[in-house]
């Protein structure tokens, strides 16, 4: 009876979604627009949506300008994110497998001890963690930025949940062939678990690349700034060329967006698995 009405509702829904999608994309556009615009196009009183000139030279300017330590900060961030991701995947997957598959009388207690740290909000522990790291003498070092973040209870939890559902028959077959826990893990379990490694890996990588409070607290001299700390220093402090700041931010985010779009289905699966199904 009311198919016309329903068609109208559907069309309306689509219009709203398209409008909101455009709105959600505008900030990304502004980033690129300002990064490729001339300084006067950014600060002109008659602001226009499209810049009058595209200035690709901004990119070269960013990499040539020695007063803006952006390249070094990007390099720091890349090292930190790669090391953090690799370390977290190794440590958390081993722990998750041990908890899920190796019988041990106190395994539950160990598991709750790990989960307990999830209850302590990580941002509240920055003062105590700073206390520890500074007494180790790790302030303003890459070590201080990487090592304390390697032990992610969240990642261990995701791996444990995943390995609990890993087909036992595959492991039993390996056991019959005489493989112990260690070789079963590396030869059978890891090669068959690519999706969970991809999901946890991307989530950890993006989190590490984007994290701010810890690098701000630990990276106290310019040599140890991450890209977020460097961008923040210029956003909150002394003025810098706006086009240079925006092109730097665009450079910092575009590789990540590509990774994000390519691996999105793994991330979505990881987010969905992250605990709602309790």
């Amino acid at each position, binding site marked *: 009876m009311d198919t016309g009405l329903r068609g109208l509702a559907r069309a309306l829904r689509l219009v709203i*979604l398209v409008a909101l999608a455009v709105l959600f994309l505008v900030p990304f556009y502004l980033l690129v627009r300002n990064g490729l615009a001339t300084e006067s196009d950014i600060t002109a009183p008659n602001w226009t949506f499209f810049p009058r000139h595209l200035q690709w030279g901004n990119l070269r300017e960013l990499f040539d300008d020695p007063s803006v330590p952006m390249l070094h900060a990007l390099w720091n961030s890349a090292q930190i994110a790669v090391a953090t991701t690799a370390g977290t995947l190794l440590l958390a997957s081993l722990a998750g497998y041990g908890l899920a598959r190796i019988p041990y009388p106190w395994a539950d207690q160990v598991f709750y001890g790990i989960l307990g740290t999830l209850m302590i*909000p990580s941002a509240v*522990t920055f003062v*105590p963690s700073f206390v520890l790291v500074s007494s180790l003498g790790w302030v303003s070092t890459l070590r201080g930025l990487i090592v304390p973040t390697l032990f992610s209870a969240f990642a261990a939890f995701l791996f444990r949940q995943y390995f609990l559902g890993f087909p036992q028959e595959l492991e039993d077959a390996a056991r019959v062939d005489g493989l112990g826990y260690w070789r079963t893990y590396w030869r059978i379990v890891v090669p068959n678990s690519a999706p969970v490694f991809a999901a946890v890996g991307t989530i950890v990588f993006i989190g590490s690349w*984007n994290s701010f409070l810890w690098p*701000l607290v630990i990276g106290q001299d310019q040599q140890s700034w991450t890209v977020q700390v460097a961008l923040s220093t210029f956003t909150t402090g002394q003025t810098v060329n706006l086009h240079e700041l*925006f092109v730097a931010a665009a450079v910092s985010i575009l590789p990540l967006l590509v990774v994000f779009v390519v691996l999105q289905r793994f991330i979505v699966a990881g*987010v969905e698995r992250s605990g709602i199904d*309790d």
Partner: protein
Amino acid sequence: MLSRLLGPQRRYLWFWVFTGPFVIGLAVFAYIPLLWSIGLSFFDAHNTVTPTHFVGFANYGSMLSDTAFTSSLATFAVFSLFIVPATYALSLALALMVNRLRFARAFFRSVFFLPTACSYVVASMIWKLSVFNGVRFGLANTVLGWFGADPAAWLSTTRPPWYWVVIVTVRLWLQAGFYLVLFLAGLQRIPGTLYEAAAVDGARPGWQVFRHITFPQLRATSVAVLLLLVINAFQAFDEFYNLLSTARGYPPYARPPLVYLYYVALGQGQDLGLGSAGAVILALIIAVVTVVQARWFGLGRKEA
């Protein structure tokens, strides 16, 4: 003796080979700092992590009687009153609309999820320097100008407190997609037979079905989303710091708890005793809020 420790077929040994490195690291970098910090909170610890002057509960007393601390809690309360309902409503509405699409569902989900990959620093930068920069070339003021309105000084005025618009919209943009994904997963889990039964019973598609089927079925997801939203709002730091702090320092308004704590513990005073007391108080507040909220929403209660 040794063989008992190693367990049958050395299983206990293997358990610790797998979990040991992680557990030791977690103990060193999570539990030790926590205990150390609780210890520090009872000492006068200016610029030192090995203090000698025991002060009892003095740090807690001065923290709780400090109006700057209590007003930071008020700032959090206002912030969560804005951001929690806004994110909840927007992400649920988006999920409902995306879920009913017959095509391009993945495309729209991707678009709304994309900001999750953006850092708070970069987003704050775009909001502060391009959208809401308080001068006429800002996007928001340009749009206001189309309607003949005067430009607003978004971040640098407290009367009216326009800065809340900036703070709330930046987080809304960054996090709505994440919760959209959670809601979509929740919607997919609702059995289709429920909708068929509702149609047989004469429920009209739209509000009635949402009110009696979809919304109650999303209960578990809703509880989890609200808990996460409140906890995350409590830990807000990045966008406040990057939006409001300028070359002249942080303004006296809009200081959430973590920004306040940051300046106490790592600012000029480096008062780690006071900072630790503040961290302990905040951790306790979060624990209480979490438990109360979980009770209130009846977490763990079986679905009807």
